[in-house]
Structure formats: structure tokens, C-alpha cells
């Protein structure tokens, strides 16, 4: 099912929850809505579902305005963040509920509940009430209840937020598998977790304070964020944001960071409009900082001295919290074997990989495009 959201506004009292949201999701697409809590994700899903009415704007399903179509006729299912299982009904009856409401015969109900329970590994728990199920079982039950009617549009509202870390990991893979199986079902997946959005979404819409600030493929959001907000939302550990000033050094335009100068040439096409002394924010991924000794064959960037003040070993990689120059704190990521032996107060020279640096205007937070940047999709 094709979903089109066109200029949707929603206000609750004095709070503007949605301020003109626009996006499309293609039939069968896995579209992730990424945004911090309070960005309007749930409100948007509820409007698509029809539980909430938009103040302005339109929701189109397969090109048809759904304003007058009642909730139950929209062929849409939703998995709630709280799962919202019917506490007084058994797992079987929870799964069967949408079918019973659609007046489907009891033999068919039995068959389809059996199938979906099999698929979601719930067969053992059919006679139990939701209160006695584990978190993972509750979640699968909620998904089963949403899928059993074979909806053409599936809305998922932070379905993994209430699960523990291990289960979340397993379920992410499960969702991808499920999406492959339900080829025709369009999935809108709301999450505050960039990892979920990046790993599952074919495209991601980043929502901020009721507006979509960027839509794109995961890789695109990572490498070419349209503003500081997207840059700091996507990527783990979060991007380092460093204040910088544009300067003329011996005829070369240079960005002066507190601890190092970098060549401004890659952004010159846009930067030419800015005078010397203009202020910017430079975004450097923790993965783009490396010990100078390792740079070797790769195009070496500018070097600067760094001192470690905290290490966070994660097993496969170690996050180093370093102080660059006088007092600029940065995070960098090293593979475990490389980080071995690096302790607090270790000092060494580091380098920035120039081609992975993002630049933002300090006032607006908007990205300064690189000379070679391709047009955004």
C-alpha cells in the first residue's frame, strides 16, 4: 500500500506536535521514522491509523484520502509501544480478536491463529493470559495480532523499546525477515534508536519537533546529514561537534579548530560566500579519528596531539575519550587490538580523515555542502 502524508499539522493545546509533515512510503517499503521522544512520531502514527485526527493536511492510502474512512476500514494495523494486549483475554483470543471482529468463522480463526503462533513461536503460550507472558512473548503476541488480518500497512510504534538488549537484537533481525515475508505490506517503523532505524529502514525520515528534517537511505544520513541535529542523532558513539572559524592563512582558506587547522578547499564552492571570521561547527565521526602512526597509506589529514582521559572498552572496539590541544574533548573509536595497552594519560598524535568531516553553519546548523556532493534524494 502506498502511503502519502501531505502537510499534516497537529496541535494539543499549546503544544504543536506536528508542524507540516510530508513524506511518501512506497508499497512494501520499510520506512523508519527516527526522532527523539516528543518529536511527534507516535502522533504521526496515530493520525495515519485514524485514532487521532490531523488539524490540517491529508493522509492518502493508495492515493485515496482517508479522512472519512473509519479506523477499522483502513486495512491498517499497529503495534503499540506498550503492546496494548487485552489483559483479560488469553494469547489465543488476543490473536483471534481482529478475526472475530471481522466475523470470520471459528475454523478459519483456529487455523490462522495456529499459523501465526507457529510463525512467531507462541504455540506453547496460547492458553495463557498476557500478564504471564515474558516481554518477548508479549511483543510477539502484539505483532501477531497486528499481522493476523494481513494488513497492507503496518505501523510499529517503538516496538522494541520495552525489551531488554539481547531480545532487541534478536527481534531486529526478526523484523527484517518478517518484512521479506510480507512483501506487499508497507511498514512504518517509529523509533528513537538510530541503530534500529539504520539497520532496518530502507529509508529513514528524521523527525524533529514535529517536522521531517531529512529523508534518505541509512548510509546517506550517516555520511551526508543535512544538519547538525541529524548528524548527532545518527551514528554511535555520537559525532564530535567542534566550533571552528573560517580564516585566510597565506592565501589558503582554512577552518581553524581549537586544536588544529584544516583545509577548507573541499567546501570552497559554498564557503566562497562566507567572509573570513565566519563561525562553523565541524562534525567529525569518532571513527574518522585515528592515531597518526596508523594513517599510513590513506590520505593523511591534519595531525594534532591528543591525551587520553577515559577509555570505554566494549569488547570489539574501545572508545577513547581524548583531549585534543588544550581542552577540546573528543571521542574516537579504535579496534580492540589497536587500543590494547592504551591507558589513561597516554599521549600520541592523531589525524582526522578529511573526507569524512561534515561542516555546518553555526547559526542555522545547516550542512555546508561539499564541492562534489551529489544532489540529495
Amino acid at each position, binding site marked *: 500500500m502506498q502511503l502519502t502524508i501531505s502537510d499534516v499539522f497537529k496541535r494539543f493545546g499549546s503544544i504543536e506536535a506536528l508542524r507540516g509533515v510530508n513524506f511518501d512510503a512506497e508499497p512494501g517499503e520499510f520506512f523508519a521514522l527516527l526522532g527523539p521522544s516528543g518529536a511527534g512520531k507516535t502522533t504521526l502514527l*496515530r493520525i495515519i*491509523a*485514524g*485514532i487521532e485526527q490531523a488539524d490540517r493536511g491529508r493522509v492518502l492510502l493508495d492515493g485515496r484520502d482517508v479522512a472519512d474512512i473509519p*479506523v*477499522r476500514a483502513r486495512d*491498517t*494495523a*499497529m503495534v*503499540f*509501544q*506498550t503492546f*496494548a*494486549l*487485552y*489483559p*483479560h483475554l488469553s494469547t489465543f483470543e488476543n490473536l483471534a*480478536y*481482529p478475526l472475530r*471482529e*471481522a466475523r470470520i468463522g471459528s475454523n478459519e480463526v483456529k487455523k490462522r491463529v495456529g499459523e501465526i503462533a507457529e510463525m512467531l513461536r507462541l504455540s506453547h503460550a496460547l492458553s495463557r493470559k498476557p*500478564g504471564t507472558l515474558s516481554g518477548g512473548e508479549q511483543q510477539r503476541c502484539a505483532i501477531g*495480532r497486528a499481522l493476523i*488480518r494481513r494488513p497492507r500497512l503496518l505501523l510499529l510504534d517503538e516496538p522494541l523499546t520495552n525489551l531488554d538488549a539481547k531480545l532487541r537484537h534478536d527481534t531486529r533481525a526478526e523484523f527484517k525477515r518478517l518484512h521479506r515475508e510480507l512483501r506487499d505490506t508497507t511498514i512504518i517503523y517509529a523509533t528513537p534508536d538510530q541503530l534500529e532505524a539504520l539497520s532496518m529502514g530502507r529509508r529513514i525520515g528524521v523527525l524533529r519537533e514535529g517536522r521531517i528534517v531529512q529523508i534518505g537511505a541509512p548510509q546517506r544520513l550517516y555520511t551526508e546529514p543535512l544538519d547538525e541535529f541529524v548528524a548527532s542523532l545518527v551514528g554511535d558513539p555520537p559525532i564530535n561537534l567542534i566550533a571552528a572559524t573560517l580564516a585566510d592563512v597565506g592565501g589558503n582558506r582554512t577552518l581553524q579548530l581549537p586544536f588544529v587547522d584544516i583545509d577548507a578547499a573541499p567546501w570552497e564552492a559554498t564557503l566562497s560566500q562566507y567572509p573570513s571570521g565566519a563561525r562553523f561547527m565541524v562534525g567529525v565521526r569518532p571513527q574518522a579519528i585515528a592515531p597518526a602512526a596508523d594513517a599510513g597509506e590513506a590520505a593523511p589529514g591534519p595531525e594534532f596531539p591528543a591525551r587520553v582521559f577515559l577509555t570505554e572498552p566494549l569488547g570489539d572496539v574501545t572508545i577513547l575519550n581524548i583531549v585534543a590541544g588544550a581542552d577540546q574533548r573528543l571521542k574516537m573509536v579504535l579496534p580492540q587490538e589497536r587500543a590494547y595497552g592504551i591507558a589513561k594519560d597516554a599521549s600520541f598524535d592523531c589525524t582526522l580523515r578529511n573526507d569524512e568531516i561534515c561542516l555546518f553553519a553555526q547559526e542555522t546548523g545547516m550542512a555546508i555542502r561539499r564541492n562534489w556532493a551529489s544532489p540529495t534524494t
Partner: protein
Amino acid sequence: MSKNRTHVIGKSGWRRTLGAAVVSAIYFFPVYYILMTAFKTRPDALAMPIKFLFTPTMDNFYSVFVRADIQGGGGTDSGFSHYFFNSLFIGGTSVTLALIMGTAAAYGFSRFPLRGNDTYLFIILTTRMLPPIIAIIPIFVLFRVFGLSGSYTGIIALYTAFNLPFSIWMAKSFFDDLDRDIEDAARMDGSSEWRVFRKICLPQVYGGLAATFVFAVILTWNEFLFALMLTGTETRTVPVAIARTIGGQVGVDWGLMSAIETLFIIPVVLVTFVLQNQLLRGVTFGTIRK
């Protein structure tokens, strides 16, 4: 949530157990005294100091239903079986009606609030703020005008009206506590508003409604003043009938009164016992979820 924790009986230690036993004994003593007196002969019932050891007799229970003829030989129906029927019928009907109407009204107040919702709720409660002794005067006049005095319709309508505010307030608090997402889920699953109420909301508050039912039954069952003023011979309830056994040439027949009271307690104990599980859930509603 500690729902799977098992409670070891006696874990609290004998001191606390003893303390609980003493307090319970003090609470239960009046009931025990009545039960005991119901099985005593008249001299035993009046004996001082209180006789804890005596030969039990069923005579009092017999005389609840059969009044001995002074002339001797046989006896006449005391009417008490009819009064018991009245109490059950009037109490049961009015509480059930109040609960049905109250639940519907509460759902409305909770889910489809009006402008000034809270004001209406307050006004509903004001009828319960008046002492019955004051309310009785206009009601008495009203009953006279409409010819309701002494009729089942009248007293049932009155008890229903007096149980309604309590039912509405209780039921509303239960509905307010429900998770709205669950209702939205039902709507998405294809339920109409009626089915959302009937299949999703109502079953979740059964426990609370059971608790409300029991409280209302107890209040109505024991109600005296309205029954005294507004029922007639045909519609007389047990509390009024008990009062009428007091006095006369023979003074208070404590044994008889205790026997009536013993019988009178039974239905309430039964209802409470049957609804026990629901009741516990209902009373703690909202405090143990999540």
C-alpha cells in the same frame, strides 16, 4: 511486580500473629456475641456476668418465623420470611439497577466527557452529602404525592437513586485507570465503540464492579431510616422488622433479635464470599498494575 512471590504462612513470627489475633477478636466480638445470644434461652441471654457456657437452643430461630399464640397451641406466621424476601428483592434489584446505570454513566463520564464534566460529577454526589434525616422530608412528601409510599417501585427507585452516585464514582475511577492504548488497539482491530466498551473495557473492570456491588449491597441491606418511613406492611424490610420486635409488654427479646440478626448477616457473608477473589482485585485496582 511480585505476583509470583509465594507468601510463607507464619513467616511474620508469632508475636505479630498474636497481635493480629487479638485485634481480630476485638473486632469480631460483637458478631460473636450476637451469634452466641441467638442460641441462648431468655434467662441465659439476660444473665450477668455473661454466660459463655450454656445449653444451646434453636427456639429463637423458630420464633423468628412463627409467633407463639398467647392462647397457646400452634402459632401464626410472624411475616419474617416475607421481610427477608423484601430485603433480598429490594436490595438486589436496586443495587443491580444502580450498578448497570452507574457503569454506563461512568463510562460516558470517563470516555466522552462533557463540558463541565467535573461539575456534573460533583452535583451527582451532593445528594449523598445531605444527612438522610434531612432528605427524608421532601422525599416523604414526594412519595405521598405520587402515591409511592409502601410500594416496591417507590423504595426500589429510591435505593437505586441513592446507590447511583457511589456506583458512578467508583466505576468511573476504574475506567479512568484503564490503558487507553488497549482501546485504540481494539478500534484498529475492527471494534465498534459499543464493542470496545462491551468486549474490552467492561471485562477489565469486573473486579471493581464486584467490589462496588458488595459495598452497595451492604449499605442498602442495612438501610433503616428510609425503609422505616417509606415502606408499608407489604414492603417492610428486615431492619424495620427488627426494630418492631423491640418494646411491647415483654421488653426486648434479645435472643429473638440475635437470631434475626444472625440470619440477616448470612446473605451478605455469602455475597462477599462468592465475590471474594473479584473483590480483592477490585479494591486494590490501580495500585498493583505495572
